[in-house]
């Protein structure tokens, strides 16, 4: 019968990779992963495309005033847009498609450049991230999260990502260029802000952080360097370096495992490092010229691979679990800096800073020579406090410090400092010190192909902006 026949068909095959070279097995693993990724994306793309079409069809069906002919035209226009997007997916973007105008920033794993896309003349900020450095520091989740947040959001509070691509040495993020520089540069320039100016930036930060939380992310690394200023003087958040997407399934341990299994490495029992790295960076701080010293060292610290711990909440160091309240702590530290001139726990070295943050009860000191209003001090104390009593977003918004803030319209009002820009490539709001030595193009060093596995699926092109993208 049929059943017997089927049984006869069944074959046992002894699998073994003994006959293969060291390269074949990881190549096969890569083929597996890439194909899985390919089908996952294909399904997602189909669902999304379908959603866009159904949405438009529904909208048009509900409009009694539009002629059928115009409706048909709109549907054709959507088809055209979708088709253009398919074309964009075949377009291989590379470094050669961009011209560097200027190096404008430096981060832990590479630089940020002002670039122009050659075919369209559009201006972007391009961040390069050195793959090897990132692998060494177990920063894979880092990039992935950064890309995911940027890519997924259309939020006015988050720097938009247009493209990402990679070569053997670097990952590249091509983002919108924010010509106003960052809050760190602004604080270096002005020492302190008035309470009104502080209120403006803090209010915008509250909405921005809230937006990130609503996307399902904890930023974890809110600091003045990551608060960028757009052409109208409003803020946007960048650098989701440390952000953990708690709705994301993959973390660096996951990628490290992929990589190890592809390289035939046995799983070690050691847990992935989650702690913030410590590097000795010495700040000399005497009480009188704290501001000056702080400023002198501030940018160096920003360029270092450790980054500054000044704004990190104590519960993160304790590693006993934390949630999105940690971002409100960071906001408190930034607010302190805006009004006082230096962050609350800054000290001789990062180790001292950690200690002070952990023992914040004894180290949160408001200096006598700086006058703060009662509301400001209360607000800061409501943020720089234990996790369980820290103000939540509603309490923050309703706090008397923010009295009079129109939360729904703040992005529309005039910002206190509006950058005066002479052209779309004006970089006068970016420091040129210490960036001169940086080459115009990232210098490619060769890395072995296996490592790319960790950066699988990194390539991204934004859909809804095809007109800008082409």
């Amino acid at each position, binding site marked *: 019968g049929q059943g017997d026949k089927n049984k006869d068909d069944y074959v046992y095959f002894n699998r073994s*990779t003994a006959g293969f*070279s060291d390269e074949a097995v990881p190549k096969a693993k890569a*083929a597996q992963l890439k194909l899985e990724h390919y089908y996952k994306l294909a399904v997602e793309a189909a669902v999304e495309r379908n959603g866009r079409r159904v949405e438009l069809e529904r909208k048009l069906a509900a409009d009694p005033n539009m002629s059928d002919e115009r409706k048909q035209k709109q549907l054709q226009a959507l088809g055209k847009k979708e088709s253009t997007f398919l074309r964009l997916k*075949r377009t291989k973007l590379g470094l050669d498609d961009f011209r560097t105008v200027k190096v404008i920033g430096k981060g832990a794993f590479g630089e940020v450049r002002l670039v122009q896309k050659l075919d369209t003349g559009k201006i972007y900020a391009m961040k390069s991230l050195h793959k090897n450095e990132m692998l060494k520091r177990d920063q894979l989740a880092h990039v992935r999260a950064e890309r995911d947040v940027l890519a997924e959001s259309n939020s006015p509070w988050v720097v938009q990502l247009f493209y990402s691509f990679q070569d053997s040495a670097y990952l590249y993020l091509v983002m919108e260029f924010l010509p106003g520089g960052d809050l760190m540069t602004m604080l270096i320039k002005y020492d302190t802000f008035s309470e009104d100016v502080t209120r403006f930036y803090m209010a915008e930060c509250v909405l921005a952080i809230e937006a990130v939380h609503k996307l399902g992310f904890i930023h974890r690394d809110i600091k003045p360097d990551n608060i960028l200023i757009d052409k109208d003087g409003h803020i946007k958040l960048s650098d989701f370096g440390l952000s953990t997407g708690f709705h994301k399934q993959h973390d660096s341990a996951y990628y490290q495992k992929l990589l190890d299994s592809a390289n035939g490495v046995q799983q070690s029992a050691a847990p992935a490092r989650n702690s913030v790295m410590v590097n000795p960076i010495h700040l000399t701080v005497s009480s009188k010229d704290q501001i000056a010293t702080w400023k002198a060292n501030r940018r160096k610290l920003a360029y270092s691979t450790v980054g500054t711990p000044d704004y990190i909440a104590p519960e993160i160091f304790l590693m006993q679990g934390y949630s999105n309240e940690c971002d409100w702590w960071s906001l408190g530290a930034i607010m302190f800096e805006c009004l006082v001139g230096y962050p609350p726990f800054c000290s001789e070295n990062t180790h001292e800073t950690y200690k002070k943050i952990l023992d914040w009860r004894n180290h949160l000191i408001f200096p006598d020579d700086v006058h703060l209003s009662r509301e400001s001090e209360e607000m800061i104390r409501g943020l720089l406090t234990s996790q369980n009593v820290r103000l939540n977003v509603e309490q923050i918004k309703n706090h008397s410090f923010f009295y009079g803030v129109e939360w729904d319209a703040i992005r529309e009002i005039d910002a206190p400092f509006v950058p005066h820009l002479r052209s779309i490539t004006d970089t006068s709001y970016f420091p040129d010190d210490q960036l001169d030595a940086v080459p115009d193009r990232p210098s490619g060093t060769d890395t072995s192909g296996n490592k790319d596995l960790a950066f699988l699926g990194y390539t991204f092109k934004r859909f809804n902006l095809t007109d800008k993208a082409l």
Partner: protein
Amino acid sequence: ALYSQPSTPKLFLSKPFVEASLVKGSLKTLVLLPKYLDVMEWVAMSMFDFYNNVNLFYGAVSEHCTAKDCPTMTAGDQLVYTWVDNNNKHVKLPASTYIDYVFTWIQALLEDQSIFPTRAGVPFPANFPSTCKHMYRQMLRVFAHLYQAHFEDILHLRIEPHLNSLFAHYLVFGQEFDILDQKELRGPSSTPTGIGYLYDAWRTSGKLD
């Protein structure tokens, strides 16, 4: 089985391997032209993706595809593919050389702006469909060789569910856009080639619906 079998049994037609797949569900939904989309763009993107994907699999087994192991580009017990050279002569090549030619040729087409335009507003050429048909046939032969000569390698490397899904997807795509030539699946005497048997088996089991 409900379908005919080649005279020598093939692993890729045997259970459980013939049924192994990565993608569950109807491949057709992935292949059908989405409403309002330009068919040329759709086919172009699909060809682009298939090329990149089939490359991954050949890359994984290529160290066993030497002139010694695979002196000819076979795709069935009797069928040998020949390459048409610059002088229009049919030549027999080692499989690795043949496949290298195929990949080089396809890569060049994909990068040719007059055939696979990527810039905005540039149209596809009039002969785009026939070029795709051509490409499709050559890539089909690469699949055929993978199944015919390297399926054991594929099993050792545990990538048969992946290869099966990719190939089934490829067949469904070829059917849908009418670039799959049945002749390519049949040998000289109209008996199926290796992948022809696979095609029949999958058709029977509904995998290609």
